[in-house]
């Protein structure tokens, strides 16, 4: 895995820094007018002997880029049938008037070849209205790494046109579910953010819940009922090695990493009371953060590591609180109607996403870190547990449906929604799914 992931070499062919771009996307508003963009199939260089494989890769890469751009909600990829120029000629120098005719504002062209088991992919981004090249890059990698190259290219395009980091070269870890509702079989699963490359990391012999990525590497923390002892575990997804986190005489749950990836913060339940603890992964030192007879759980660090948000029922019902990372200066921040859970600090630091329960409905929302400016993004029968995209623009969460007394009609699915409240989308998974967690960008 590792060698594949890191075999990407970036050749900067030409970076048009000086170009004044007319196209830019304001992603802070709800995107009611997605940018029309033409993604030309990548031209295949014919001298290679592995031409068939290349043709497939060339068109597949353009499809993945197109699909990524479409799902972002910020772009409107145009029908390829309307393209007037051949991919190879367009890649050399597009005839801008032709692309203007089909209302494209941006154009992506590229070419691909395989030599000596190396896949070389080149792409260019063109501003049609300004009749200029905005960006040109080439990548060389092992051939079966082509999907990742497509995601990396999308990230480059996204960043060039929106001014913000992308989130396409990322993965989602989640719980894959099957079986009857009262005897659900749950396995850890991981997939690319577009749903491709699903892999199962556990066999389903024991109940597993709430996996979360380490923001700095490929480690995961989750909760498992292995041997009927519900505990927080640490899993290296590259080696498959896993271990219990700490030596607690009771249930540990609701784990998350600190932003530097060096600590795990979680709840420990003993004698009917749940409090928040951290464990340093290097020194193994365990620290108590809260001490209160109420339930304190779902802790999440601010990106600078200085604060922790969590939910507690110390007021009688679940509400969201913020404290310093040493547990001092605890402040309740939610005072709206309803009850609040699963606070998650945005990677940008300015917002906290949460689940709200009010009058029998479940909402995913965001608020500022002092609790002001609450905005509910989506309402449903049941939904919870938002997780941020690494650029802080998109939330992923899960929904469950109502079921009959035999569990009929029950389903669990992953969804994403933009911070703006627009662009709500089902994330397709091979099985029912819950508890999604978004990784950091795999390549920066």
């Amino acid at each position, binding site marked *: 895995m590792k060698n594949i992931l890191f075999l990407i070499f970036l050749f900067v062919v030409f970076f048009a820094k000086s170009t004044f771009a007319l196209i830019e996307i304001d992603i802070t508003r709800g995107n009611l007018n997605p940018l029309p963009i033409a993604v030309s199939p990548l031209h295949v260089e014919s001298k290679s002997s592995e031409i068939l494989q290349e043709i497939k890769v060339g068109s597949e890469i353009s499809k993945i880029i197109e699909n990524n751009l479409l799902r972002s909600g910020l772009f409107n990829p145009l029908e390829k049938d309307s393209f007037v120029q051949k991919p190879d000629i367009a890649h050399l120098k597009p005839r801008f008037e032709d692309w203007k005719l089909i209302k494209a504002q941006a154009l992506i062209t590229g070419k691909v070849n395989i030599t000596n088991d190396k896949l070389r992919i080149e792409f260019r981004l063109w501003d049609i209205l300004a009749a200029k090249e905005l960006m040109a890059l080439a990548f060389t990698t092992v051939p079966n790494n082509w999907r990742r190259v497509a995601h990396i290219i999308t990230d480059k395009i996204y960043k060039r046109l929106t001014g913000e980091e992308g989130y396409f070269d990322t993965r989602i870890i989640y719980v894959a579910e099957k079986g009857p509702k009262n005897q659900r079989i749950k396995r850890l699963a991981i997939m690319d953010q577009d749903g491709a490359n699903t892999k199962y990391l556990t066999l389903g012999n024991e109940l597993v819940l709430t996996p979360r990525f380490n923001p700095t590497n490929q480690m995961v923390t989750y909760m498992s009922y292995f041997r009927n002892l519900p505990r927080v575990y640490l899993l290296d997804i590259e080696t498959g090695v896993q271990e219990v986190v700490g030596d607690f005489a009771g249930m540990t749950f609701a784990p998350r990493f600190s932003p530097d990836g060096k600590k795990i913060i979680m709840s420990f339940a003993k004698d009917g009371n749940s409090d928040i603890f951290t464990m340093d992964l290097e020194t193994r030192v365990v620290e108590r953060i809260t001490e209160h007879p109420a339930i304190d759980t779902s802790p999440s660090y601010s990106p600078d590591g200085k604060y922790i948000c969590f939910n507690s029922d110390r007021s009688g019902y679940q509400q969201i609180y913020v404290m310093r990372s040493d547990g001092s200066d605890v402040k309740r921040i939610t005072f709206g109607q309803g009850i609040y*859970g699963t606070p998650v600090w945005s990677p940008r630091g300015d917002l906290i996403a949460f689940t709200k329960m009010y009058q029998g409905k479940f909402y995913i929302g965001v608020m500022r870190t002092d609790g002001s400016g609450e905005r509910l993004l989506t309402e449903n029968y*049941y939904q919870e547990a938002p997780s941020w995209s690494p650029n802080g623009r998109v939330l992923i969460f899960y929904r469950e449906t109502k079921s009959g007394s035999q569990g009929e009609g029950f389903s669990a699915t992953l969804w994403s929604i933009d911070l703006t409240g627009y662009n709500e989308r089902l994330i397709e998974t091979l099985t029912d799914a819950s508890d999604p967690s978004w990784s950091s960008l795999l390549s920066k």
Partner: protein
Amino acid sequence: MLLRYSLRNILLIIMAALILSACAAKTTKKIETQTTQITGDTYTGDETVKYLATGVPDRVFFATNKSVLTTASRDTLRKQAAWLRENKSINVTVEGHADERGTREYNLALGERRANAAKDYLMTYGISGNRISTISYGKERPVNSGSGPLAWSQNRRSVTVKAN
């Protein structure tokens, strides 16, 4: 044409009325059985109850978001304590559960709190804490897979099971 149209409408209205009244009859009946089984917010029926021994129910039920033992729950737990005193070789696990209308992590904590509420009560009636372990399943193991007040009330429970 107009006549035929209105006739069809009248027919539709009659059919709809019939269906509605049938539904109404069915729901009132269902609500009746539910209200007899739920007091306040706590399940008081015995549909899902199993028995550790004759006359010793295995579970107690809780109100939404609560872990307070009701009078009926304490009665059940005193029976369990008496049975445990007579059967000194038996150890038990108290499993705490929550309904599906909460966040997963909070429900894990709530299930643990409920299991311990039952355990504490058994201990005040003389059962050694060494004989009672607890585990929370949160909302993960409903006994009734439905989505409605009755199912939820049956799922908010702690269940005492033999551990050996």
